[in-house]
């Protein structure tokens, strides 16, 4: 298997006022190109920490993190992040927010017209061409998250990192965006790492589900291969025994093996 992103014996300690706190320990994970991997676990298990290490926003205190053959030394546009709370800049329009990323990544090599075209295309891809001149406070939460996804994808990242991207949305909007994400990822062939606490979301979207044990000193408990054919359809899957088997495995891990903590 090609190791596109690799974490080897990664550990993360934070220095707090009460001494050192070990959040992660011995995390070993390899992700192949064009793979969709979900990280799932109870809250506080360090799944976002793993994502932030891949993003380069955090540097691991132990072990080594590698992306496309190089040690991760910091964040960069090759590993785009869709943040949990969208993180759009409120003083820029949807167009402005996406354009900021386009300008940074392609500004030196391409003409202004081409940059504008890329921005428009990214907005069209998430179905927001009509909202291009709106500010983030004028659009719904689902639309904001779609702008966030457009901003990440427009950079043509090697790895797309999603930190509970649909966590703050209602169930219907969430389902729509999941379907949209399935289509976009199929079209762009992105490598994706997604943090989630939603079992259905993980099974529906992922090739592999990485289940994490509870913290402190959390690590990878089990990895489940989701061998469901693509394209996946949420209605057809609802009556698919293989889908339910996957679901049952993840639920079993979360609530039997590591069920001692209340679910957030």
């Amino acid at each position, binding site marked *: 298997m090609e190791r596109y992103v690799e974490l080897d014996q990664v550990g993360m300690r934070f220095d707090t006022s009460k001494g050192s706190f070990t959040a992660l320990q011995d995390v070993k994970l390899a992700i192949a190109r064009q793979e969709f991997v979900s990280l799932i676990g109870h809250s506080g298990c360090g799944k976002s920490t793993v994502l932030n290490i891949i993003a380069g926003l955090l540097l691991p205190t132990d072990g080594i993190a590698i992306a496309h053959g190089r040690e991760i030394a910091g964040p960069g546009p090759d590993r785009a992040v869709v943040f949990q709370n969208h*993180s759009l800049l409120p003083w820029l329009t949807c167009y402005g927010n996406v354009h900021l990323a386009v300008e940074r990544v392609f500004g030196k090599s391409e003409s202004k017209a081409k940059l504008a075209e890329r921005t428009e295309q990214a907005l069209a891809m998430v179905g927001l061409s009509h909202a291009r001149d709106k500010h983030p*406070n004028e659009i719904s939460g689902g639309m904001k998250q779609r702008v966030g996804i457009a901003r990440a994808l427009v950079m043509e990242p090697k790895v797309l990192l999603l930190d509970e991207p649909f966590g703050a949305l209602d169930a219907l909007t969430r389902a729509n965006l999941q379907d949209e994400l399935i289509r976009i990822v199929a079209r762009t062939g992105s490598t994706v790492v997604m943090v989630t606490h939603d079992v259905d979301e993980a099974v529906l979207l992922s090739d592999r589900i990485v289940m994490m044990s509870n913290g402190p000193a959390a690590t990878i408990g089990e990895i489940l291969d989701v061998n469901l054919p693509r394209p996946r359809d949420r209605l057809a899957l609802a009556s698919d025994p293989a889908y339910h088997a996957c679901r049952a495995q993840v639920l079993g891990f979360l609530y039997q093996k590591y069920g001692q903590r209340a679910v957030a």
Partner: protein
Amino acid sequence: MTAVKSIAGAAAAAEARPLRRNRVWPAPFEAIRRPVGTLLRVAVPPLLGILLFLLLWVLLAQGSGGSLPGPAATWLSARELFADPFYRNGPNDQGIGWNVLMSLGRVGVGFGLAAVVGIPLGFLIGRFDFLARMSAPVISLLRPVSPLAWLPIGLLVFKAADPASIWVIFISSVWPMILNTAAGVRAVPQDYLNVARVLRLSEWKVFTVILLPAVLPSMLIGVRLAIGVAWLVIVAAEMLTGGVGLGFWVWDEWNNLNVEHILIAIFVVGIVGLLLEQLLVWLAKKASFGQEV
């Protein structure tokens, strides 16, 4: 079909019966009831307040046995005064318009200098913890000092009245600008800075695209506090330094025992202060982009 009809029938019946047991007004009154209600809520309390204030004033004026002029006398005097606001009879006798403009000019210069110094300083103090710790003792010591205490220092250094009063405005309005800008910089959400890190924006881009717009609302709060203080202080400073200006004018009219003019000055100071404040509130709204101000 019958089901639909019965629902429609029920709705019609409900409409015929008023839901709330209000008094039923004749149709034309019903149409204007709402706007009249809004008018009553919005306009009546302030008008009532002003009326009570005037009443109190009249009572006080009558009680003072003629030493405090009432609203009517003040109004007549004001009409005379504002008929020719821009006359000039030598350095100590100029129109009310000149006095207001001179005061505003001093506030503008002192305040502008305070912005030029205070805002960049606030950015530095907010961005670098070392500078914040370094400046904290000095700022906490100097900030509570009454602005007028700085006037002798200004007179000593500048040897002239005008720069000294500008200096007082500067020193009194620089603190809110420094502190609020610094607080704004410290409160920039980490999320925005993470976006900058993922995009690897240049320092200049981080400043113009993220820091400056994120800090703007709290910076403008500082500016608003500062202009309030500056306008408070200018009247007092001018009383002490003389020249042309509202403060000097108040003191001059006190020496002339023209109490009507003193009252007019109080209103002019109040109204100009109110307008400055409103201007900045409006600016702050424009700059907030739906964030909390």
